[in-house]
């Protein structure tokens, strides 16, 4: 049984937790509140936690200075396709590596895992040349195909494999006796049971795609094709200096869906990580 903390110890623990929270909460707080401040107030000293005057026009300007709604849609649909694609591929690949005996399975899995060790900066130039030859530069295809068949998918495959390894073999044997084919066992038994792992894969992948920065700036050149992280850098004045309050308003809008998704799926996310034996 857990020992009950004394009231004094509780105060100390909660106090320490509040102090530790500051570095995590402050940047978000600063981003959200500064998006409502005039530029002069953002850099005022001492810094103000709550704006003296609230300026809501920044949010309107976000949508007039850039095709922000279009960019929002670009990020959303690309992230959605990447997430669904990665979930499909990683669950099938993870299941195969965990459950199907085939020659050199472990060696092949190791080779697949090597994909995690190669930084995207190393592969970006050859990828650019490839997509240039395929006529896909300044389209969204590279932003969809590279993550689905790249490192995020490898990581997702690893997470799914670890989950499927932990599924009791007897469930599968019972399904075989019940008359299910291998594919049906996967779709009817293994996949529905892998929801926690799939949820964490979905969040990881969505976040990765949503925050993707290097690939968009390499592959995209027209503003109406930009994704959000790239669009954020475009809120500049005539001299190229950042328009801080508008940029922070755009950043707040960018972070919002991720925060909402994470808060909703938090439980699954943690469960999924626990299943893989990984720590977040």
């Amino acid at each position, binding site marked *: 049984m857990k020992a009950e903390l004394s009231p004094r110890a509780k105060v100390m623990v909660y106090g320490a937790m509040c102090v530790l929270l500051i570095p995590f909460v402050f940047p978000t707080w600063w981003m959200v509140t500064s998006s409502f401040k005039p530029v002069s107030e953002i850099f005022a000293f001492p810094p103000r936690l709550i704006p003296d005057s609230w300026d809501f026009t920044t949010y309107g300007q976000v949508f007039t200075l850039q095709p922000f709604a279009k960019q929002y849609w670009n990020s959303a649909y690309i992230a959605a396709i990447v997430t669904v694609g990665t979930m499909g591929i990683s669950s099938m690949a993870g299941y195969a590596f965990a459950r199907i005996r085939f020659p050199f399975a472990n060696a092949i899995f190791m080779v697949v895992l090597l994909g995690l060790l190669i930084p995207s900066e190393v592969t970006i130039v050859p990828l650019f040349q490839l997509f240039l030859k395929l006529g896909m530069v300044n389209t969204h295809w590279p932003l969809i195909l590279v993550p689905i068949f790249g490192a995020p998918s490898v990581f997702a495959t690893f997470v799914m494999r670890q989950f499927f390894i932990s599924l009791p073999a007897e469930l599968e*044997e019972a399904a075989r006796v019940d008359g299910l084919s291998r594919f*049906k066992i996967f779709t009817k038994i293994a996949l529905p049971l892998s929801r926690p792992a799939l949820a964490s894969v979905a969040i990881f992948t969505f976040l990765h795609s949503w925050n993707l920065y290097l690939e968009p700036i390499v592959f995209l050149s027209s503003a109406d094709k930009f994704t959000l992280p790239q669009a954020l850098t475009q809120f500049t004045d005539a001299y190229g200096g950042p328009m801080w309050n508008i940029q922070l308003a755009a950043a707040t809008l960018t972070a919002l869906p991720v925060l909402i998704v994470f808060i909703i799926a938090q439980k699954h996310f943690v469960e999924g990580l626990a299943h893989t034996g990984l720590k977040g």
Partner: protein
Amino acid sequence: MAEVTLTNTRKSYGNVDIIHGIDLDIEDGQFVVLVGPSGCGKSTLLRMVAGLETISSGEVAIGGRVVNDIDPKDRDIAMVFQNYALYPHMTVATNMGFSLEHRGTSKSEISERVNWAAGILGLTPLLDRYPRQLSGGQRQRVAMGRAIVRSPQVFLFDEPLSNLDAKLRVVMRGEIKALHDKLRTTMIYVTHDQVEAMTMADKIVVLNAGRIEQSGTPLELYDRPANRFVAGFIGSPAMNFISGKVHADGLAVSGITIPLPEKAKKYIGDDVTVGIRPEHLTVEEGGLAAQVLLVEPMGHETQITVQLADNPITGLFRERLALQAGSGVKIGFKTEALHMFSAKDGHRLE
């Protein structure tokens, strides 16, 4: 319903033989229990019948049809697993009807069969629950329900009661036996618990290291074990063994002589192991002097372990004996109930 025949069935992993050429005939409607210590190959043999393990050589036939290369789903068998293997994301009713659903059975028939099976097993009020909402015994019943709903030719049980507590095990034992009496379908049941084997089986097959040591009815195995292994495995508490040399007046062991039956005369001069079941020991004035090591009163009987010469011997007595550890006691043997085994290879001596 169908008979199951295994002919010279072998299983090897690389160079290691797990099952060494088993020949076994299981009659239609028979309840056969495969019993043996851990690692003897009983579960492997069952899985070979189920089609979950391939057969290295030999033949497995169900209902006269060789099924070596036939998928588990096409063997017309149903299996109950040790850990129940219920699908956690499906209700009891869906679990039970799942195999029928995948065989193209109509919804009305599935519902009818599920309700029939649930009725037999007392699961009707639980049909809408999920496995996580059930107790161990209920889960076990659902696993059986999932098997019987298909009315297969053969039921296979792989240690289905080993995860239950002792009391529930006794209840479920009775239920499975009653189910067999009701359905009269061929059942093959794997267990390491010889009490389960004795109480449930029409025929027991004792396995050891991938070989059949003996098969027969429970009482045949109990009364006439073919060798020392079977004699020691069947019966609880286990049979006592004392090794010595046969003389004209009995078995000479560490300075004492144990009286032997008349038939022992033909083994005079031979090294023999004598087996005596605990219930065939007596406490009597003319017996051999022994020292009490342990007294275990169980109410309806008393189990006593004594030191006789160099051998610890266990006796089971209907009487409530007023003995204490460390005290002396005179132990007698019902000589007509003694078993004799070759000290060399352990086979039974008649």
